[in-house]
């Protein structure tokens, strides 16, 4: 199917070469409607073994969705919803695993199943509930996801404001929980860890939201024993269940690359999301495992942003035993704040949304959309790889070498952030960078940049406004943000 489509798309592209390209030319949004009475403030999404989506909501309801991938899904009445379960507390994640549907509520990790096949839950088992909650609205939990240890991982949010029942343990942690109810905390110092996902190779990552003790939003590896910088919940590290020793007190007002001097277990992120340039509130994310059915970005990560109602794209690579990489804008204009992303059976990307309590640029209060690749090849930076003396860019379409060779047409700067108690960090130590050489490959698919003054622990922000494809198009997104933690040797 892909071949003829691509040919047709190429013909179309040649025909319209002069028209400016837009995101919608390449990634189309399909809105999956809800009837009145179905308030789909999506907290989690998964596919049932029969391929139908199952969606849990912030209201603690779980819905089974029929016909979500039908060709006429946007027509009223085609998509149907069945209330699978209700009466749960703020469910913000779903995982279908070994015949059970797992979710984490405020107070417990639960698993549910429908025994008699009527699409309504018959049984809910409490898998584990080793933590208590204080009754604060912000005591959210996210997950679960299957960890490399074969156990279920969740992240816990820290409270904000009043705690009617007193301060509770294990807020701002990643916990690993066995199906037998055994559990252990694996990471501390999380702030508002709204997304958690296991990578195809097993490591679990999470997204965190900029705020106090979190200078910029980030995507980070949940390395067992790591500390992510927010001290609020770290008093729990004195409990016997925490086996990684005293992480120490996070220093107030230190540049991120220097924090490990005080906190050796401090985990620098895989990528930072510079504020407003790449959204504001990263949430759910997912690796592209569609092998090209969703376009040219197989293996990369799509990240939702709640405030900006958009999707970002992250390219990750391993350098010096750590993950790092680049963030690119991908698709704006979703209907509401993006909370979760998950793959549909047809390799469209399901996007679950809500703007409740946290405003979003989208116009709808909640909803479900699907992003479908139109088959047309966008002109995008495909990958951005670090090199000892600069970066190597690859492109989805050949570039016009003439527009690439003049380094002065590229703009690049680098900056980092501070760890501190106040809300968010400005970009610190900003420096313009000299791109001393830009060398396109013969096939026009690669551009090698030599850059003076690379700094480890810094975001390297790149703009390519003058670059054109061989057929004269500017980049669909001409900016990229590489978080350089290690400079490769």
């Amino acid at each position: 199917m892909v071949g003829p489509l691509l040919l047709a798309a190429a013909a179309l592209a040649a025909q319209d070469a002069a028209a400016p390209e837009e995101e919608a030319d390449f990634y189309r949004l399909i809105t999956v409607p809800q009837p009145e009475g179905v308030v789909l403030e999506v907290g989690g999404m998964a596919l049932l073994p029969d391929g139908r989506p199952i969606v849990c909501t912030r209201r603690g309801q779980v819905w089974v969705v029929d016909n979500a991938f039908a060709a006429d899904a946007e027509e009223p009445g085609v998509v149907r919803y069945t209330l699978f379960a209700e009466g749960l507390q703020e469910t913000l994640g779903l995982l279908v695993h070994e015949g059970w549907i797992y979710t984490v509520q405020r107070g417990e990790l639960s698993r549910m199943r429908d025994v008699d096949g009527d699409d309504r839950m018959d049984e809910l088992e409490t898998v584990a509930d080793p933590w208590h909650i204080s009754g604060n609205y912000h005591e959210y939990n996210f997950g679960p996801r299957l960890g490399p240890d074969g156990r279920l991982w969740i992240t816990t949010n820290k409270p904000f404001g009043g705690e009617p029942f007193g301060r509770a343990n294990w807020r701002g942690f990643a916990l690993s929980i066995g199906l037998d109810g055994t559990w252990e905390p694996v990471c501390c110092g999380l702030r508002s860890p709204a997304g958690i996902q296991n990578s195809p190779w097993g490591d679990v990552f999470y997204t965190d939201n900029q705020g106090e003790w979190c200078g910029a939003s980030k995507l980070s590896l949940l390395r067992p024993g790591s500390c992510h910088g927010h001290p609020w919940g770290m008093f729990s590290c004195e409990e016997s269940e925490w086996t990684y020793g005293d992480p120490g007190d996070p220093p107030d007002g230190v540049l991120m690359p220097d924090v490990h001097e005080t906190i050796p277990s401090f985990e620098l992120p895989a990528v930072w999301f510079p504020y407003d340039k790449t959204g504001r509130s990263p949430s759910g994310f997912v690796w592209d495992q569609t092998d090209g059915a969703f376009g040219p970005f197989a293996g990369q990560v799509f990240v939702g942003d709640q405030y900006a109602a958009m999707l970002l794209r992250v390219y990750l690579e391993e350098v010096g035993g750590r993950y790092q990489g680049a963030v690119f804008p991908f698709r704006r204009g979703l209907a509401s704040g993006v909370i979760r992303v998950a793959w549909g059976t047809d390799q469209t990307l399901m996007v679950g949304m809500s703007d409740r309590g946290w405003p979003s640029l989208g116009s709808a209060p909640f909803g479900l959309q699907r992003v479908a690749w139109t088959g047309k090849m966008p002109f995008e930076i495909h990958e951005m790889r670090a090199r000892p003396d600069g970066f190597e860019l690859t492109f989805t379409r050949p570039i016009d070498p003439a527009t690439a060779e003049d380094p002065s047409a590229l703009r690049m700067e680098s900056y980092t952030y501070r760890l501190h108690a106040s809300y968010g960090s400005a970009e610190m130590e900003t420096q313009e960078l000299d791109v001393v050489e830009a060398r396109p490959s013969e096939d026009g698919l690669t551009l090698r940049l030599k850059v003076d003054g690379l700094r480890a622990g810094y975001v390297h922000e790149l703009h390519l406004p003058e670059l054109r494809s061989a057929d004269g198009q500017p980049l669909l997104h001409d900016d990229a943000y590489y978080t350089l933690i290690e400079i490769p040797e």
Partner: protein
Amino acid sequence: MLLTPIVVAALPLLSAPQAGVRAVGVAARGEELLTELRCVACHAPEDAWSERLPLLPAPSLTGSESSDGVGKRARASWIAAHLAEPGDEMPDLLGGLPAAEREAAANELLAYLVSLGGPFEDGPVPILPARLERGRQLYHSIGCVACHAPLEVPEDLELPLWSFEGGLLEDAAFDETFERSLTHLPDKTGHEALARFLLDPRSTRPSGEMPSLGLSESEAQALAQYLTLREVRADGPGFDYAPGLIYEYFETDNPAKLEGVMPVRAEVVENLDELPEHRPDHFSFRFRGFVLVPEGGRWTFYTTSDDGSRLYVDDELVVDNWGNHPMRERSGEVNLIAGRHAIEVVMYEQGGGEGLEVAWAGPGLPKGAIPSSALRHWARVSPPDPRGEEALEPALVARGAERFRALGCSACHDADDEPAPGKRLRDLDALAPGGCLDEAPKAGLPRYELDAADRGHLRAALAARYGFSRPLTPGAKLQRTLNRLDCYACHERDGRGGPSDDHLGYFRVEGDLDLGDEGRLPPTLDHVGWKLLPHALDGVLTQGEAVRPYMLTRMPQFGAEHVGTVAALLSRIDGRPSDPPPLFSADEVDIGRSLAGTNALGCIQCHDLAGHKGLGIPAVDLATVGSRIDPSWFRTLLLDPWSIRMGSRMPSFFPDGESPAKDLHGGDPARQTDALWSWLSLGSSMPLPEGLVVDEGEYELVPIDRPITVGVFFKDASARTVLVGFPERLGVAFDVESSRLTRAWRGRFFNAEGTWHGRAGKLEDAMGQDVLAFPDGVPFARLDADDAEWPTRSADDVGYRVRGRRVAPEGDPIFRYELDGVEIDERVLPKLGPGGATLTRSFQLSSDGAGWIHFRAATGERIEALPDGEFRVDDDQVLSLRGPANLHAVVHEGPAGAELRIAVPLSSQPTLLEVDVRW
């Protein structure tokens, strides 16, 4: 200045009983006058007469915990004028004295009265246009004008009274023919004192004729503002500019639509440093007043706000900081001459964080907050009252106190147990020259404003005084109360009374509801003692109960001491032998429910239902019927509506004796009526009929077909609580973390706004009524003996493990937990019965082996075993138990009270335990 009460005094003596004069005989009218004029305060009646001649206390002058002394509530100048020329029922006691002594006596009395809480003070009172307008509308709608003169004609009430630019508008033409005017109040009292009085008028005026109207604090403030400040004119006498700004607080986040909206609150703020109290999201503020510009020139104003704000100076938009955004500064410039300029700041907040900061900068003034000293709002300042301070000379006060006693004032005011100062009533000579009834009473005797007719009535009553020992008939007793309290001003009974044509326009319905006169006029009292059960009558008369929320006129509360017997009198006079009410059964309830739905009789087309809006007009909520209405009256209303002639728009449901619903009870109107009654008897626990469109805002959860389950933070339970609402209108709360059922209630289930709106996280509570609390602590324990100590530690520490839940086919959750090898499944099910739903708790206990487990079914101060094996807990709960044969229950008396413990034997087979709870 001549004071209004004197004008009032010249009017016919008492306005209330005018109708009564015609209805009762001359002597009977005289008998009423003996009470109303308080003749019996000085002239003691015989004991046997006192039921017919009660002493009605005059207004309290000393004050009490709940009322101000007269010196605190009235201006000295007004007291002085009132002593010089009293009015109403108060006689002139100084009139016969020589001029010099009269003046001395008046000064002494004034000193004493001012000393009772005085001197009067009334600080600057902010003029709040929204409050003034609210007071004006309240005054002319809730019933004040049934007795007091209206201050405006009804048509004018739709025009604004106040414009912020121009102050009070000139009064429109006004019909001055009404009596009991209150136009004297600005001279008599002040805003704060009047507001305090209005909240509890009977503690100042114990005679009950000025009833309580159940005002909220803010309503009392509004009425007091209107009645004391309505005549203040911008820049006229008493008007001033006081520091600070007026603010109005709205619970809307659409400030484009504030015009004509009544703010939730209006007050004064010192400055614009921080927002006054507000809810977390979705609100607006409007600040208004004046800014004092110290020097002419170019001025810059700044607002920093989250979300939007706008600032106007002299009605010109200067700062536009509109739109949704985090704290963001915007500014604007304007040329101003030195002096006072109108300023207005509007801000709104949709969601998330919020804030407002306002700053200015101008010639010689760097950017900074606008200080309080530069902000002004309109206020009324009281002119100083020189008589107040002067009067408090101690020797004068002491002489005044003595004079007060000597003149017999204390026989009526704050009467103590002293013997009445005059001759006994039995010994009076009605024709004695120089007596009270003479044209010219002797010095020292009270002088009443009596006309010849009044004297005739009084003399006739005195001539017949030995008849006072004969008790009044119930009808006469009732008549007397209806006359004295002027119930006829609002209500009609036996062809008498009801609003006069002059007053009809002041009886209004909420909004524009199409309910006709039934919606706006207080109901007829014909048959009312039959229609309403005695406790319902008493509820209306003494408990402030009301079932017509759409009617703006309120039922005044006169106090049980004045109307406490009226319910019994009405029941006795109007009551009819009642048929036994239909037998209750759950099947009858179901038929009644079907009849009320849209597919049958359609009661819900007009009537509200247990707090949910009906489909059309909001006629009386049917949930109130079962507990208030006599069943035989209801039967007559449905089967023979014309015999009751309620004047109702309620249609006849069985025209020609035929029911439109043929399939229910074979279309038999009598059986259908009885089924409806079974359903109505459940009150607010009634299952909701089909066809009801539940539209109580998007967050109210209303189970109609299936139970609803929702997870919440809950008061007196953990933050991990699940609520279950059943269509039988039973709600329960189960604390998952403690494996404990904590609450049950009837009626409305739950409004999820606090849990489902915005960032949510509200600590929720039961929404309905009849809330039943189950015992604190763990429900089950493994005890060594029946009387061992019950564990007090948390469920976690005791060894409980949460297992989860199953969902029954009916949709309700079965909660599962485990204690010490015993797996427990707990289910709560509603059970319909007379009065509403009760519940059954059922437990399935599974374990490997034998032994015992104890269940604590109830705790209380007193638990009593009833003969039939049931247990009564504190008179509010009855439990009955079912389970294995060798189960036993014990009442354990512990230090914290009584506990009902049930020892349940375990075996390898699952054990069932069921506990019915009625409350």
